[in-house]
Structures are given as structure tokens and as C-alpha cells.
């Protein structure tokens, strides 16, 4: 990372972030609501995939708890931002219990609290689960994810059970989500490039060697898992705002598998890959949704084909895992040096992507 071009890179990064923010401000007013929704979903998927990359790609711990953790964040934010009156209307199985029945917070503090609570739950899950390896780890995390979802179904006095929550106020806009995405990517990138990150990669490559080198396995895994949980909680909170309606079925393990698909598509060790892949996934998902719905073209009714979307995604995941395990980007990252070396061709291709990780 440390070379002479660093000030230039920083200027370029800051400029492009400012440009992106200006674009998001423009887009918020000029694009139609459908396009804005797609961009929002892309942003949320980026946060989910980047946080999954941290625990899966960089630390090598295959955790399937993403859906359950996102549910915690989503429900926390929804319950904190819904007005007491709205809650009384939608809770018709059982009235909400005390703190939930009266509380109403502004959006950003509740989003933050959503992240913190999710991180705490992540700590509670990780503390026992991360002592396990391989198959056992993924079964346990999947089990915890399902337990969270099933507990939500069975707590009508807190989260309205299987009915879910409706009419969650939409407090977000593109700019807010963009800023959160930038913060997430920045934090994860800095973490991965720090000495902690090197320890995490060391754990991924060989746990015994890492331990022999003095890396505290458990503490590092927990750090990655808790940070990842925090961002998943934030993503879940944004998700509930964008959707407006959440219920426990939103957070079935399928959501986790979608994140896994995106991570594999982009390359599990590449944040850039995750960003690209979540965009591809969002667009593909919408295109295939159109195929699934019945439609009329030239007075001929074409019946929709249900299940085609999932069929395409599962086939894609299978093909990726069989033939292109490194995904779009492998372990490469986007870097300004690479772009610059592309434009100034007279320079020798000496610095091709300074942030490429040794794999």
C-alpha cells in the first residue's frame, strides 16, 4: 500500500466518492422509484456480501448465520422506528409489551443500535460456535440462524409473530445508503489490510501454523465475526426500511445462500468482486422476476414460469463452484494504480494492482 502514488490515490478516491454522492443526490430526484429501489438493493447487498467476505473469504470461517443476524437488525430498526400507534394497529395477535409499545427513535440512532444489538448476538453465537471447525461450524451457525427466525415467529408480543411488521417508515435514501456502503467497505478494507487482517488470513491458510506464530485464534475469529455481524445488522436495518414489510420468512436460509452466491460470484477474497457481483445479482434477479410473471405480448398470453429465477441462480452457483471457484475477481482488488498503468501505456506494467493479496 505504501508507495509514492499514495497522495494521488487518496485524492482520486475522495474525488470519486464525492462524485458518487453527487450522483446519488441527483439520482434521488431524477430516476424513477424502481431504479432507485434497485440501486438501494444493490447497496444493501454490497454491505451483506462485504461482511460475508470478511468472515468467509478472509478468515476462512464458513458461517451460515447471515439471514438470522440480518433479521435481528431488521426487527430492531423496524420496532424502534415504527410509531406507537402503528404498532398498536399491526399487533393484533397480542399487544406489544412495554418498552416496545411506547418507544420511537429517530432513524440513524436506531440503525446504529440495530447494528450493536446484532453484533452482541453475533458475539453470543460466535463465542461457542467459532470453537468448532468445518462442517460443524456451518451446521451450528445455520442452526442458530433458524433458531432466531423461529423465535421471531413465536414471539407475538415483541415482533408480531408470523404476521411480521408492516408500514415501516422509509427513512433512507440513496445518499444515506451510499455513505453507509462506503463506510463499510472502508472499515472492512482497513481491517483486512491491518495486522489483524494478516492474522485472519493466516488463520484461513493454516490454523495450527497461525497458533504457533502466536495468533490468538479465538480472539481474531471473534473480532471478524462480531464486526461482520455489526454490518449485517446495519444491512438488515436498511433492508427493513426499503422493503417496508418484514416477516420471519424474509429471513429464511435462502437469504444466506443468496449472499453466498454473490460472494462466490465475485470471488470470496475480493471486496471489489463482491461489489460487482451484488450488482450483477440485483439486475439478474429483476430480469428473471420479469420472466417469472405472466405477461401478454401481441394478445398472446405467455404464462409465467415460477421457480425459474431460483433455478437460474442455483445453476449459476453450481457452475461457478465447479468451473470458476475464484469468481470474477479472485483475490484481486480494484486499485487506482492499475487504472493509471492502463492509461499511461508507455510505463512498464510494473505495478499491476498494488493491493493484490499474495494468495
Amino acid at each position: 500500500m505504501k508507495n509514492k502514488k499514495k497522495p494521488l490515490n487518496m485524492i482520486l478516491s475522495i474525488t470519486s466518492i464525492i462524485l458518487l454522492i453527487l450522483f446519488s443526490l441527483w439520482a434521488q430526484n431524477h430516476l424513477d422509484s424502481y431504479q432507485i429501489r434497485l440501486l438501494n438493493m444493490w447497496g444493501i447487498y454490497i454491505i451483506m456480501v462485504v461482511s460475508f467476505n470478511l468472515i468467509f473469504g478472509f478468515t476462512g470461517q464458513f458461517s451460515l448465520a447471515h439471514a438470522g443476524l440480518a433479521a435481528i437488525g431488521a426487527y430492531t430498526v423496524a420496532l424502534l422506528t415504527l410509531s406507537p400507534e402503528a404498532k398498536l394497529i399491526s399487533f393484533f395477535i397480542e399487544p406489544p409489551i412495554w418498552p416496545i409499545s411506547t418507544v420511537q427513535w429517530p432513524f440513524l440512532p436506531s440503525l446504529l443500535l440495530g447494528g450493536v444489538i446484532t453484533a452482541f448476538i453475533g458475539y453470543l453465537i460466535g463465542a461457542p460456535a467459532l470453537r468448532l471447525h468445518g462442517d460443524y461450524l456451518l451446521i451450528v451457525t445455520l442452526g442458530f440462524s433458524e433458531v432466531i427466525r423461529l423465535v421471531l415467529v413465536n414471539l407475538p408480543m415483541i415482533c408480531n409473530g408470523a404476521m411480521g411488521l408492516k408500514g415501516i417508515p422509509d427513512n433512507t435514501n440513496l445518499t444515506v445508503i451510499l455513505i453507509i456502503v462506503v463506510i463499510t467497505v472502508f472499515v472492512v478494507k482497513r481491517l483486512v489490510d491491518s495486522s489483524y487482517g494478516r492474522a485472519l488470513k493466516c488463520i484461513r491458510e493454516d490454523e495450527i501454523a497461525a497458533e504457533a506464530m502466536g495468533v490468538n485464534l479465538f480472539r481474531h475469529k471473534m473480532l471478524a465475526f462480531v464486526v461482520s455481524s455489526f454490518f449485517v445488522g446495519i444491512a438488515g436495518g436498511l433492508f427493513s426500511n426499503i422493503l417496508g414489510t418484514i416477516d420471519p420468512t424474509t429471513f429464511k436460509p435462502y437469504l444466506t445462500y443468496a449472499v453466498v452466491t454473490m460472494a462466490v460470484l465475485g470471488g470470496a477474497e475480493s471486496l471489489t468482486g463482491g461489489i460487482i457481483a451484488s450488482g450483477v445479482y440485483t439486475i439478474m434477479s429483476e430480469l428473471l422476476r420479469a420472466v417469472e410473471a405472466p405477461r401478454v405480448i401481441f394478445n398472446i398470453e405467455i404464462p409465467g414460469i415460477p421457480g425459474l429465477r431460483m433455478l437460474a441462480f442455483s445453476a449459476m452457483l453450481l457452475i461457478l463452484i465447479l468451473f470458476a471457484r475464484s469468481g470474477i475477481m479472485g483475490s484481486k482488488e480494484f486499485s487506482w494504480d492499475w487504472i493509471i498503468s492502463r492509461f499511461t501505456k508507455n510505463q512498464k506494467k510494473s505495478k499491476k494492482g498494488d493491493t493484490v493479496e499474495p494468495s
Partner: protein
Amino acid sequence: MRTSLFLQFLINGIALGSLYALIAIGYTIIYGVVGLINMAHGEFFMAAAFLTMWGVMTYNLPWYVSFPIATIITVLLALLVDRVAYKPLRKMKTSSFIAAISVSFLLQNLFIVVFTPRSKPFPHPALFDEVILFGDIALPVVNIAIVIVSTILFLILSFIVTKTDIGRAMRAISKDLEASQLMGVNPNKVIAFAFILSTAFAAVGAFMYCSKFPYVDPFTGAIPGLKAFIGAVIGGIGSIPGAMVGGFLLGLGEIMLVAFFPTLTSYRDVFTYLILILFLLFRPGGIFNVKVREEKV
């Protein structure tokens, strides 16, 4: 609780437990031999039931013709899946698990696309609908059939595993892959046999399960598949008696929970998962304390 009611619940629980055990054996055989959690096992279960139904509905075959054909097709499907999706990833645990998940979704959605997601009545033998009355105990014939069929299958399985060469080879591979190869065991043959055996068991389980709950749709396999998997883990994944005991106890426990604590019915799955988690955390080898074959990830 009245004794007769309790006995009825008990028999129901034994029947469900035997079904879970039948399916759980499939997970445990594959895990023992290949070291893979075959997440698509529930989908093979569904495919067997669905194709049986389809043969009866579309070609008017009697069930006793349709079922064997469906079983053979499903076994071939499982062998194809193993060859195409699992074999190239044999040494890569994480990748092969992801492959198994995607095969599971692929099959489920393939059936949705081809046959629509609507649920259809399952054509079971008419005999299974009858109920025998012993005093005030009502015994559905299907439950008795389940218990008899699964007992016979367990006996056949234990014969295969303990008395035949291929069974010995299976056990040898699950103990130590390399040493058994040195002793002249062909792992490819044994793996193929393991897939045939586990899918055939799943097919019989599917037939009995769908006779008990007589509807079939592309999602039929998901819940029994998951429960049987949990049963296999509780018993000790990789061990055949473990899968039998684990699956059996899980099915029995589920029915008994509903029988004794009707208010907790909606928490049934929470308890199932909690038991799974507690076992994995404190006794990952399951009831039978299976030693996991150490492999490089």
C-alpha cells in the same frame, strides 16, 4: 393422559422416528464414505415421491410398478449428481458443501419449473388408509407398515454392512481412506454403491412418508430431509447405528413433545435446533461419539 391415547401417540412417534431414521441413514452413509453433507438428499427423497406420483397420474401405472421405476430414476439421478457435481470437488470441503446446496435448490426448482409448485395427492395403496381398532386404541395401518418396512430395511442394511465385501469396504473407507485404498478398495465403486444405497433408502422412506402424509409437491423433501439430517448429527454423523438411533429419537421426541406439552407445539422446531446446537457444542460426535475422519480442508 389416558393410556390408550398415550399408546397411540407412542406408535405415531415410533412410525415418524423410523421414517427419520430411514432418511438419516442416507446422510450418514454419504458422510461416512465421502465426507460430504449431502444437502440434496431431501431432494432425492422428493424426486422419488414425485416421480412415483407422476407415473401413477400420467401413465396410469399401478403404484407397485411406478414406485420401482421412480426409485431407479432417482438412483440414476443421484449417481449423475455425484459424477457431475460432487466428484470434481472431492477434496474441497467448503466447495463441495456449496455444490450440494446448489444441487438441492437446483432440483427443487427444476421440479417447480417442470411440474408447477402445486401440491398433488399421493397415490398410496388403499390398504394404508384403514385403521385397526384394538379396544380403544386406533392403529392406522400405515404406521404399522412403516415400522415393519423400516425394520426389514434396517436388517438388510446391517447384513450388507457387516457381512458383505462392499459393506466392509464402506466401513473401511469411513475409518481410513488411504489405508483402505492401499488394501485394494476401489473408492469410486464404494462411493457409487453408497449413493445407490442411500438414495434407495430415501425412496422407500419417501413412499412411506407420503403414504402417511398423502400429498406431494416440490418442497416435500425439505422438512423431513432437514429433520433426518439433524437426527443423523445427533446420533453421530458417519455412524449407521447413530443415524438410526438419532433419527428415531428425534421423531419420537417430536411427537411426545406435542403429546405432553400441547402448548409448546409451535416451539417444536426451536427445540429440535437447540438440541442440534447443544450436541454439536458439547458432544460433536453425537450419541455414539463418532470420531471424525481428519481431513485437510
